[in-house]
């Protein structure tokens, strides 16, 4: 077992973990952050996307021990008093149906907009290519990211 320290959505934690424990399983099963789901086992779907030290990662592809000393923001810690503009835009544009991909999709969209505040449609589609959605056909997801970019949801 390894001892790790991590700040998860603002909460400072110290835990014993198996060295092989995936970050996503640590978040879900030890840190109580079940808002971040697991959708695949090959890092294709992006449902488990979180932010680690300011960078977007697929938390199924990071070991908890690799995040030792780090700061993790999940979908549950994204809202700061009020919803993040991307969260608002997702609801406003009906960019989700079952909602399973939504946490990862929102985290990826936030990251996309930080790197490119005014993406066109193709840039949005390319920027989210690591995240899969089976419900929306991505049509309204693109619109939501555009709305968030335009500040329409603020």
């Amino acid at each position: 077992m390894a001892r790790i320290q991590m700040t998860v959505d603002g909460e400072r934690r110290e835990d014993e973990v198996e060295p092989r424990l995936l970050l996503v399983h640590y978040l879900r099963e030890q840190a109580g952050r079940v808002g971040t789901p697991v959708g695949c086992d090959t890092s294709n779907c992006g449902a488990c996307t979180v932010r680690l030290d300011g960078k977007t990662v697929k938390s199924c592809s990071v070991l908890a021990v690799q995040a030792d000393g780090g700061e993790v923001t999940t979908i549950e810690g994204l809202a700061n008093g009020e919803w993040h503009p991307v969260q608002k835009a997702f609801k406003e544009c009906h960019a989700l149906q079952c909602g399973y991909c939504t946490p990862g999709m929102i985290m990826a969209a936030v990251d996309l907009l930080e790197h490119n505040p005014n993406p066109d449609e193709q840039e949005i589609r390319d920027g989210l290519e690591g995240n899969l959605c089976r419900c929306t056909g991505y049509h309204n997801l693109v619109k939501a990211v555009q709305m968030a970019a335009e500040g329409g949801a603020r």
Partner: protein
Amino acid sequence: MTTTEERQAPAVGQPLRRKEDARLVTGRTRWTDSVTPAGTLHIALLRSPMAHARLSRVDVSAARELPGVVAAFSGTDLADDFGSLPMAWTVSEDAKTPSHFPLARDTVRYVGDAVAVVVASSRYGAVDALEAVEVDYEPLPVVLDMEQAMTAGSQLVHEDLDTNVCFTFHEEHGDYEASKAKADVVFKRRYINQRLIPNAMEPRSVVADPTAGADSFTLWSATQVPHFVRVFMSLVTGIPEHKIRVIAPDVGGGFGSKLDIYAEEAICLALARRLGRPVKWTASRSEDYQATIHGRDLIQDIEIAATSEGKMLGLRVDLLSDMGAYLQLLTPAIPLLGRYMYPAIYKFETHSFHCTGVFTNKTPTDAYRGAGRPEATYSIERAVDDLAAHLGVEPLELRRRNWIGHDEFPYTTVCGLEYDSGNYEAATEKALELFGYDSLRAEQAKRRESNDPVQLGIGISTYTEMCGLAPSRWLGEKGYVAGGWERATVRMTPLGKAEVVVGTSPHGQGHVTTFSQITADALGVPFDDVEVIVNDTAAVPWGLDTYGSRSLVVGGTAVRHAAESVVDKAKLLAAHLLEADPSDVEFDAGTFRVKGTPSATKTIQEVAFASFTAHTMAEGSDAILTADNLMDPETFSYPHGTHLCAMEVDTETGMAKIRKYVCVDDVGKVVNPMIVEGQVHGGVAQGIAQALYEEAVYDDGGNLVTGTMVDYLVPAPPDLPSFETGRTETPSTTNPLGVKGVGEAGTIASTPAVVNAVVDAVRHLGVDDVRMPCTPERVWRAIHQGGGGGTPAAEGTVAYGGDSTATTAGGGQA
């Protein structure tokens, strides 16, 4: 409270934002895998790596000794813990239903068939312990190709059945041979509807929690059908029905794959009973690919008898449908549910239908979004385009010569279904306009003329489908064990809010929002004052769950009727409170008033409070403002529409890229246009995915080669275009809401539109078929290795499987 001054706008018809979304965009969800009661044990299943083998030894003793392992069992160890999994639809007299135990006992029949289960205190520990289970497999020959499986002397998937044919089904509507005799043209084609993996984003998950001393169990399951699970889990495990509570919490998509009764539900429940502790299983994605049903997988032989002027007289359909290794809940019924849709929107005089279900050593198939109708629509809409090319008639013109005119409704089809309403002309006109059909045809001609390396194709699909499963009597006649009704309760709370309890089981469709809209209007209460309770058999005792685009048509109608009954009850009490005769009391927008006395009013909220206090009651009325409705539909509803796809095909690389996709759907009246549009988007995307990207591929050993998301191409955002959607609105006449259902329409319509567009782009190069998915390789082969032959891909259903790979290019084979 609503008063006459602030009358609210009707909620129905508005794109109201979804009530469901707040928890979904903030991660405050409860998926089954997020449920972990104290003391939970985790299970892992050892799955067969062999497609067909005898189990000569399954030894779990070493696994039992590992630290953290609580128990481990083979199939024979648990032989008395559960029976065979259910199949609910007897489709013919000769239909065969082999035993299907949650854990294999003596033989494994597909890669993924569960052989043993390990129970441990941690998820990782359970998976680790699988390594210690020892199994001796004696390999048996593998059955993969349906046509080979039917030949005499073929290896049998189930030796006790003496055949690999699960069922044969035949139906004649009129004398097809007579149509053929008078036809100028008999057009024959074989279409292949490949095997697909549904890919709900949430892998399946089950938690069974025993209540000590009560012999009762709570079962959380990522399912579309909690009410079915309760009934069938009782039958499979012997636990009395009233001792099982099933909760489908937040469910991350289904698309038919969670319309089933699965081994893991029985295993978790049986182990929770044995061990007295909560037991949990969550599939990995790769495990889900093997152990959750697949979809489609048909060989479709289509024959149309037509006149040289393009009047389609008769339709012959002969299907081979791959059941996989076992029958799941509805496996054999799926191709047959689609049978009514082969004549589609056309006025055939005769129709001959034949279907054979075949066992193979693959994952069982079952309902995948559309469940029989996408299969039917794919082949008929392909065939109509191909026949048009054969006759030299414009494909739209051929459709116009044969479709049911808007003035011919209600229309009884050759299958005997009565289509209630529709306007194919209007939907098509609107689609053509949005599409810019004429200018795209002109561009196509120009590119052909100049021999442009990038050719343009236009694909058409004018579909209809049947929704609103289903009249219970009809289902009974067809051999289904359950009914098709839906039930709702609507009640007012003491402080004037409304609660709706409804038996449909949403998993992304937005029922809570849609049913709130219906209820708000019927009761005259604010949208936000309505709570909708679903997905828990303890809270919702009656229901038949969600599939077949039935929830709004059947469930929504039940909600509407129940809400109207609440108003009727409230009216009696309002009359009593207003000291008026009930016949003099009117209700509008949440307020009761006495005719001719404008000041004498009671709001429904005031009546609800009076009902709660019960200080003064009308004679004969009961005190509680609650009403139930059981809605058993008398018939189906028939959405329709026209989808158009413009496709650019690079003849040098074979790459097919959608340039424009337009769909105009007529789903009747629309409760929430935003949700309806979203359903169309997602449906179209899944249909495009079948056309261009997805295929479950097995190698000749029966291994699922596309066994992970790396190998099975679920389209990502760059793989799909934005869609242009439009609607026409011809109200259904078969339900009071005038709605038709929309959950599957896009998937049904889009696949043939896309493949027709691919073929149209290169037909002048001698290609008349490209097998799905239309990958660059297949398109390139079709162009460069000739084409134009009658029955491509005839050899087999196993893509990339030796010789059959060569036949996937589309052409050459007679």
